């Protein structure tokens, strides 16, 4: 049944008494405001659960495809390949999913409700921070799916649950930071399609030109040079190290450095674009 508008609606007395509260409560903290916006994003998922398709079906497809396509050729058997591939494919999948942040922001921002948000006396970045916090929930779901499928196919992390959890935590930090790139694009570019295309142009080299699929030793020198500085390489290496208990701390350092750098550049840029008039 659709909502109808028939019965006598306004109860003037209740309206009058509803108007009596003129005292404004204390301004909420930045954290509380961000969490309110995260709650808003979670409610949207609750109302349209199909939105979770990209963080469930997509990862399953990735793991199955790459394991069985490349496994035999590259490592002798899919199961052997999976031990190396899975941490990398986890990084790749979640990095790809961050792209949707920019698209949905681009769709969202044109709506009238953003005028209301912008006319409230609140910590302004909260709108975006909240959105990204809710995205972290989506990334976590994707990570659980990837690891779950991996374990079902024979992935056995030597670093145990602690290693796996730490790897996912590092991945979430990087994804949160990378998302600021997409929020900036989402605000700058005119349509969701434009955001999508630009994001893919960035993500293809970023994820494929890494050590996710193969050891970079066989690549030409200039590709290797890119692979070495690529944050996805460091993140994939760090994730493998944490999951298998063979961590080289340098990779974690690089990931954190990249994350800090991305936030330092793209968060202020995003806020400038957000505050700019439309």
């Amino acid at each position: 049944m659709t909502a109808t508008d028939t019965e006598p609606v306004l109860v003037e007395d209740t309206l009058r008494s509803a108007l009596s509260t003129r005292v404004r409560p204390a301004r909420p903290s930045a954290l509380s405001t961000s969490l309110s916006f995260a709650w808003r994003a979670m409610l949207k998922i609750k109302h349209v659960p199909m939105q979770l398709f990209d963080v469930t079906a997509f990862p399953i497809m990735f793991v199955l495809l790459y394991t069985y396509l490349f496994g035999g050729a590259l490592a002798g058997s899919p199961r052997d390949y999976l031990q190396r591939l899975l941490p990398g494919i986890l990084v790749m999948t979640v990095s790809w999913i961050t792209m949707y942040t920019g698209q949905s922001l681009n769709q969202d921002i044109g709506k009238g409700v953003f005028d209301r948000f912008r006319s409230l006396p609140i910590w302004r970045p909260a709108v975006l921070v909240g959105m990204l916090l809710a995205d972290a929930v989506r990334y976590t779901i994707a990570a659980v799916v990837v690891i779950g499928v991996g374990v079902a196919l024979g992935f056995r992390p030597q670093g145990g649950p602690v290693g796996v959890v730490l790897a996912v935590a590092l991945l979430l930090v990087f994804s949160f930071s990378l998302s600021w790139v997409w929020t900036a694009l989402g605000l700058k570019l005119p349509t969701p399609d434009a955001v999508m295309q630009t994001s893919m142009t960035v993500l293809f080299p970023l994820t494929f030109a890494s050590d996710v699929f193969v050891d970079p030793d066989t690549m030409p020198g200039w590709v290797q040079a890119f692979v070495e500085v690529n944050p996805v390489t460091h993140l994939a290496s760090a994730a493998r190290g944490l999951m298998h208990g063979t961590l080289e701390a340098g990779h974690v350092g690089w990931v954190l450095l990249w994350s800090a750098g991305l936030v330092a550049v793209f968060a202020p840029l995003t806020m400038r674009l957000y505050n700019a008039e439309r």
Partner: protein
Amino acid sequence: MSSAGPGRPTDVTAPLAIETAGLRKVFGDTRAVDGVDLRVPPGTVFGILGPNGAGKTTFIRMLATLIPPSGGSARVLGHDVVTEPDAVRASVSLTGQFASVDEELSGRENLVLIGRLVGLPRAEAAERAAELLEAFGLTDAGDKLVKDYSGGMRRRLDIAASIVVTPHLLFLDEPTTGLDPRSRNQVWEIVRVLVAEGTTVLLTTQYLDEADQLADRIAIIDHGRVIAEGTSSELKALVGAGSLHVRLGVADQRDDAERILTELLDEPVALAGDPTALSVRASDPERAGDALSALARAGVVVTEFALGQPSLDEVFLQLTGRPADDTAPTEEVA
């Protein structure tokens, strides 16, 4: 002001709700708002009347701190919109032209979200949402998604969201555009109650009768400039009561009708594109009646007549077509 000692019973220093001086906004080559001076006393309803693209929304967006002015100054409840935006935001609410509510959430969730954002604790935000849903007749629809709401329900929710904390000043940007008459009356009713409880309202509208119904004072704007300002009766006196529209049974008689009407009403007669229609300004209903009788006596067959309030078009024609009006935009010559 300087002689008023502290603690005097009447607060003569209470700031104006809105005070603008030479306020301008330029987008590229377009001067959307082109030097507006307005003073709106607190506790009143101020109407801004103008056609689409006159600059009404841009004016409100500047006052609500959504966009910075290109020039001039604006103070809202004593706070400068450029240097003290948070102080302004803390005492105003905005109801935008396109409902400022979240379509993908339920009505209740919308109100709880705003409650949380203005700083209410969780339980109080929920309580306040329920109270507002009740007051706006939305309790039954409270848990439905807003995208399934009718236009009138959406508008009411929008206004409810604006008064989660009752603002000192409420901006209503074309609150009834696109609503059916019934929903329109409901919105008017809400505005009247709000004002009775002490909120100042700045209302934009394209409808003369809406401004007439609600506003204490009205500014008519065109091409970003105020071309007239006053109470509704002042403006009407400026424009005249309206027009007598007559439709004839036979087109051949239009010349006769034109002659008789011109004679009796002392005003030029406008001939419409329809060869059986003509209209004439008539400030006095009685004289309009006499003119109709005269037509009947002369054997002119009148199939339809109407004595209308001046429409916004007529107000504009009158205001911008008058040579003495030095603000008349040149574009109107065509």
